[in-house]
């Protein structure tokens, strides 16, 4: 079985992004970019499944401009066998990302797709579910535990009320939550090895996908800032202050 992992290039989670003064977007020049943390978790899970002998190949796929090759090389260094870049300069909405991933899945004969539950830039949280719908296959979002046996996946997911376990027939789409695993660190020799691993470049047209964006971003603005509050010196003052504000009686 081949596993596809989605790799999105995003602003590193440690960076505090700033909105451009003209409201045209966020300032991305010179900002550190990384693999979406949820995609690292997705990749780690795929690698573990392969290491358990339950998959033959892990293919990392990214949709984006040429620079995304940096993140695909990191994915190869982590242990992916191959990478595919679907070149696309335009911003892609999740539905088009899903359509492109589906085209790759069909081409490659993928048995399991693992994506992040959300990308930490746009926070849309849609791609995996949309992919599963278009593929007409099961989805398990927000996964915190995955077990495979005879083309059935038993997956535990983090839901608002606790932990839910589902059983799905493969092929399927799984989206990773934070506690699915802890991704491994990349070692220097792995970076060297990754340079020799195959990284294929294709584009939307070659996959037969024409972009169909639906939404227009009219404006980007900074969120309203909370004013800095006051400091109290002890518990008695704290209680008095909270009573004054009417949040404690």
């Amino acid at each position, binding site marked *: 079985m081949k596993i596809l992992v989605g790799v999105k290039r995003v*602003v590193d989670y440690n960076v*505090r*992004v700033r*909105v451009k003064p003209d409201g045209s977007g*966020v300032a991305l020049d010179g900002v550190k970019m990384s693999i979406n943390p949820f995609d690292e978790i997705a990749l780690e899970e795929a690698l573990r499944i392969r290491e358990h002998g339950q998959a033959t190949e892990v293919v990392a796929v990214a949709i984006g401009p040429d620079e995304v090759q940096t993140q695909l090389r990191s994915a190869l260094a982590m242990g992916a066998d191959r990478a595919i870049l679907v070149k696309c300069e335009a911003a892609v*909405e*999740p*539905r088009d990302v899903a359509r492109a991933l589906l085209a790759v899945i069909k081409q490659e004969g993928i048995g399991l797709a693992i994506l992040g*539950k959300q990308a930490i*830039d*746009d*926070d*849309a*949280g*849609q*791609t995996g*579910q*949309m*992919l*599963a*719908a278009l593929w007409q296959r099961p*989805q398990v*979002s*927000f996964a915190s535990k995955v077990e495979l046996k005879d083309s059935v996946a*038993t997956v535990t*997911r*983090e*839901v*608002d*009320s*606790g932990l839910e*376990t589902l*059983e*799905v*027939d493969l092929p*399927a789409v799984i989206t990773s*939550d*934070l*506690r699915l695993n802890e991704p491994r660190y990349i070692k220097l020799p792995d970076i060297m090895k990754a340079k020799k691993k195959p990284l294929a470049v294709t584009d939307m047209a070659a996959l037969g996908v024409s972009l169909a964006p*639906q*939404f*227009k971003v*009219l*404006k980007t*603005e*900074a*969120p309203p800032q*909370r004013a*800095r*509050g*006051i*400091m109290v*010196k002890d*518990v008695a003052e704290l*209680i008095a*202050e*909270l009573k004054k*504000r009417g*949040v*404690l009686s």
Partner: protein
Amino acid sequence: MSRVLIIADHDGAHLGGGATRCVTAAGKFGAAEIHIAVLASPAAAIAAEAAALAGVAKVLVVERAENAHPLAAVLAPQVAKLAAGYEYLIGPSNTFGKDLLPRVAALLGVGQVSDLMSVEGPHTFKRPIYAGNAIITVESPADTILVATIRTASFPAAANGGSALIEAVSTDAALPTHTRFVSLSAAKNDRPDLQSAARVVSGGRALGSADNFKLIYTLAARIGAAVGASRAAVDAGYVPSDMQVGQTGKIIAPALYMAIGISGAIQHLTGIKDARTIVAINKDAEAPIFEVADVGLIGDLFKIVPELTAALGG
């Protein structure tokens, strides 16, 4: 005449808190009618609660055995059929809605606006990106059904007092058998629900153990608060994952939020931006949490929390 269809969240017995907030959001679209769909088994009690919400004109009930558990793959084809003729299809941005609505959108051949936080016009909306560090205004074409998840912390719950028509409907959607419910392990406790509580007390990594977290539970019980946690506290196993507050956990808007031994990472702050009063207790005067706290107290939580609990006790 435009109409809104809300897909109700529920726990099998009662209507969820998300649906009631969706009703308030739906009221902002300027639509002629608001309908709620309840897909459940059994559904009567949930439908009755939905019908009692002020502003709702009709409740559509799809009661079938397959709807006993909220499986997106099973619900989505039914919802896609129900959506015919509606201009807006919305659901709460909690794990139920986040799982289901993108699947429905894809079946309908449209995109989705996630975490809709305000309605600027019939087809323009605001939503947060970058963990809430930026807010975008997006425009959706007027001739396309809008599918959106609603950021529940941005809208108050709708009041009761309505008496909507309840209509049993069936769809001819073919349902897949490739996805099967196995189990749900929900932590049983009698604390208020984190997502709707007026007061929340949260603990962070500083608590150091599951046992020490009792300090937080005791304080919370004293003031009738729900209990939350930072990701670090969840990862360390002090508390279950459903207590995580933040970008990738729950987004909440209580009147009072107390962050105890939590540093205030941006991912955590995303979850509490809309709290009315934020209190921070931290021994590090430089902790970023103090930049957003309305009231800050510097000191050792192991000393302050028992003192606070005692001072608030009868």
